[in-house]
């Protein structure tokens, strides 16, 4: 039952964050690129204000998988960087925390694009 609740929370919170994006697409005609940029920056800001951490504790992957979670990770890393090595940590911390995701996106993105052919625009 506890595991079920955990998955339910991830589902509902993750779904709701996506609904916010859908409403922005339908009502404001923001392009997908602008939506993604807004979500990452929103994640950094909410992380900086300490508002995103409780959501991560509540919903787990429901809060970390959406791109706001990527922003949260960047802000958390920046703070840890500053804590550990001072001002230089502001520069290194965010990217260090997000390194696995950025590395995977670049390398897998490149390899898959290399291997596959463009799909039919159906």
């Amino acid at each position: 039952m506890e595991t079920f609740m955990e998955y339910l929370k991830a589902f509902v919170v993750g779904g709701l964050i996506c609904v916010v994006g859908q409403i922005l697409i339908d009502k404001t005609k923001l392009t997908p690129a602008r939506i993604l940029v807004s979500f990452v920056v929103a994640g950094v800001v909410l992380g900086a204000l300490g508002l995103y951490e409780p959501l991560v504790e509540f919903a787990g992957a429901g809060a970390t998988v959406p791109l706001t979670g990527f922003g949260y990770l960047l802000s958390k890393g920046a703070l840890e960087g500053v804590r550990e090595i001072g001002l230089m940590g502001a520069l290194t911390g965010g990217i260090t925390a997000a390194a696995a995701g950025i590395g995977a996106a670049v390398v897998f993105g490149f390899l898959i694009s290399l291997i596959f052919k463009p799909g039919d625009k159906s």
Partner: protein
Amino acid sequence: MKMTASEYDRLNKQVSPNSSVVKNCIFAFLIGGLICTIGEFLTNSFLHMGMLQREAAALTSVSLIFIAALLTGLNVYDNIAKFGGAGTLVPITGFSNSIVAPALEFKSEGFVLGLGAKMFIIAGPVLVYGITSSVVYGVIAFLFKLY
């Protein structure tokens, strides 16, 4: 109830935009929620293998990015995105898709300025604004001793 064709058109216009927004939101909720649930499942599986929370979370992102890149290469992800809308865009899988889709499309323009450059047509701005705002936050935290 009798109405002329133009009356029907007008009523139809009043009703349909909203109902399509509601429909889009339901699909975004279900598909976005499902992707996050898969993420939660992956994290739990990695934790059961004895990984630390941080490693498990990182590997979850890496796995989702790989799966979405592969599904984009197989032309599956974009078909899900047709009805998933923001549900397929907002999760980290959408970030991965935003890299592979243009890279494949512009591959014919060369491996450097085609594939290599167009990979970042959406991911580039995301990294620019995400990283910059995190550095600004770090500097503010340093100056005001918020750490």
